């Protein structure tokens, strides 16, 4: 992949094909200069290239590209693969932008979302494109601007409210609980609140206790609220779009440390179902349920486990409220062993509720008690080593699976 990107650069520099790197990625011009099928672009490692015929094959060989050279293959594979590569925060922006193009009632409000482009650059460039009213820079008044979002939603707009850090939304708890969650009900169904509340949360790199909070455990009891957590660029864009299109108030949890994840996502319009969990790695022996950043700790542990001969099934639950008990249940019925790995605090966290839900629904299918690995019930320390210790690490996950499978 890296090699392909390096060769793409000299291609861009040359103006022979008149292509920029953007078009090259989609391979649209790859065959057009020669005008016939089967011709290919040969890129040499020194950056020289020739067009139209395979110069390396001589002697009348009819099979033009029987053996592709390494650099060619890499260049071709990058360009002919569908989709485009981007970082998670760019995927969120792309989703938001597409929805704002699609529906003029979609608007963004939050601190520094406009001119500053968002503190994590999720809304970069949107204010220039859509104006200061559609991408509203608010003063520092979380409770009031979240309430403003609710009021705008009752009158037909579709606001996306950004909490600069999820922790700041604690100040908006009044509005999130009483109005976002309940207004649809207390009004007897007369008003819908199609609001999306999003922002980065979770434990970062030594951000301190107050900037490292996991609000999903606090919000999960609010009736009427829907919660999802994204973990990859693909599901970040899909969930953002689905949340905006949903008539329900949705809280979209992003993670501070996942914004720079890179992935290739499809070009075409797609959404991810808000209530669905994602099968990350199918397996037969034990079900590991996780979400957000812990997915990556689990996958790291999964590598070790596979080497040790275990076969874990990893599911990213994605939908924190309501749980996708269909996918989870099918997995439990198959493996009979469950491990939950979360970044929430142990007390009253998502894991606690998930455990209860599995016990209520799938008790007969369990061969072992459900293990739940969560963060320690302490304020997140500043010191890096202490901070690491309060979170679940891959080694603990491996140990837990070994214990479960005894």
């Amino acid at each position, binding site marked *: 992949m890296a090699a392909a990107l390096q060769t793409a650069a000299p291609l861009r520099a040359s103006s022979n094909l008149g292509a920029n790197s953007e078009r090259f990625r989609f391979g649209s011009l790859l065959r057009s200069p020669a005008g016939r099928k089967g011709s290919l672009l040969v890129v040499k490692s020194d950056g020289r290239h020739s067009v139209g015929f395979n110069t390396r094959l001589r002697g009348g060989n009819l099979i033009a590209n029987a053996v592709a050279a390494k650099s060619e293959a890499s260049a071709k594979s990058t360009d002919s693969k569908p989709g485009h590569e981007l970082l998670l925060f760019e995927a969120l922006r792309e989703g938001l932008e597409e929805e704002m193009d699609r529906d003029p009632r979609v608007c963004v409000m939050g601190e520094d979302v406009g001119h500053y482009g968002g503190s994590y650059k999720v809304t970069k460039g949107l204010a220039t494109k859509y104006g200061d009213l559609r991408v509203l820079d608010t*003063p520092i008044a979380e409770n*009031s601007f979240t309430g403003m979002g609710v009021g705008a939603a009752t009158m037909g707009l579709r606001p996306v409210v950004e909490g600069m850090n999820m922790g700041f939304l604690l100040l908006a708890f009044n509005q999130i609980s*009483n109005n976002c969650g309940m207004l649809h009900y207390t009004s007897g169904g007369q008003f819908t609140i199609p609001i999306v509340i999003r922002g980065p949360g979770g434990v970062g790199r030594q951000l301190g206790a107050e900037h490292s909070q996991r609000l999903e455990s606090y919000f999960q009891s609010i009736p009427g609220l829907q919660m999802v957590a994204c973990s990859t660029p693909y599901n970040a864009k899909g969930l953002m779009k689905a949340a905006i299109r949903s008539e329900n108030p949705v809280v979209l949890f992003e993670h501070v440390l996942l914004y720079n994840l890179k992935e290739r996502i499809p070009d075409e319009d797609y959404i991810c179902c808000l209530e669905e969990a994602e099968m990350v790695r199918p397996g037969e022996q034990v079900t590991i349920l996780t979400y957000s950043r812990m997915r990556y700790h689990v996958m790291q542990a999964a590598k070790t486990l596979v080497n040790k001969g275990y076969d874990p099934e990893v599911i990213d639950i994605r939908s924190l409220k309501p749980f996708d008990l269909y996918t989870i249940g099918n997995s439990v019925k198959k493996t009979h062993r469950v491990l939950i790995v979360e970044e929430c605090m142990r007390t009253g966290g998502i894991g606690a509720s998930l455990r209860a839900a599995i016990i209520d629904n799938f008790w007969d299918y369990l061969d072992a008690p459900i293990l739940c690995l969560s963060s320690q019930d302490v304020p997140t320390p500043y010191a890096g080593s202490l901070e690491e210790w309060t979170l679940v690490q891959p080694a603990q996950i491996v140990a837990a699976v070994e214990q479960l499978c005894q």
Partner: protein
Amino acid sequence: MALGRSFEDMCAQMYYRGKMFGFVHLYNGQEAVSTGFIRLLQPGDAVVSTYRDHVHALSKGVPARAVMAELFGKTTGCCRGQGGSMHMFSAPHNFLGGFAFIGEGIPVATGAAFSSRYRHEVLKEASPSGGLDVTLAFFGDGTCNNGQFFECLNMAQLWKLPIVFVVENNLWAIGMSHLRATSDPVIWKKGPAFGMPGVPVDGMDVLKVREVAKEAIERARSGEGPTLVECETYRFRGHSLADPDELRKPGEDVDFKLCATLPCCIAFGLMCKFFGFFISYIMLKHSSLKGIIRKSKRSGCCR
């Protein structure tokens, strides 16, 4: 106003007879504010209230039958019995609630005003009112010490939102006197601190309220921004029907009770203004007012 008073009195009757439950907050004494403001609105304009919302709903046009049914928890209520006294909503009348926590309705009102400006400028929709759709936010003196009040004054003025903040200052927040809770008890002066006009008005005089309301609503509609109006009023009953109301001195309401009964209120006000010349007009008004009150008690269909 007549309907509002008789409605609230009936609520009290039902509550004390054990047919209505929960927290019921009555509006007796403050009717002039509701009528003075809301009767000037167009259908596209919105109203946001607090838990003392029965009469605001009635003024906005919600049928008395629907409001009363809601208080009894019936499915024929305006919120299907799901909201209750403190959560009156009506989408067809743009009545956005009914909020139990004080202050939490003000941001919602600010959002409704924001959406009005958004529809006008971004969606390029023309309102039948000829300008911007206006939102009225009603709240009390206690709310004026709450953070959400100040945050919304700031935002509304910042973006010149078409909203009027109406303070119903009845001097008491349950048992807390406004003077004991507020460092500077003059609320209307807090408007200019945020750059918007602040106007005091006698909240017991419906004509004076209407005058001020007209100007404030026109200001908002034309896009000049918000106004803070402080209506000096009084509630003749306790904070709620469960409130023993022991802290307020019995004689405190005398100044406000000059205009207690409705025919007196209008007649007295008119007499003071147009003494002599309009005696015959007053006589006519008095008799037609009696008719209005009779009609409102019977059918609950006029205000």
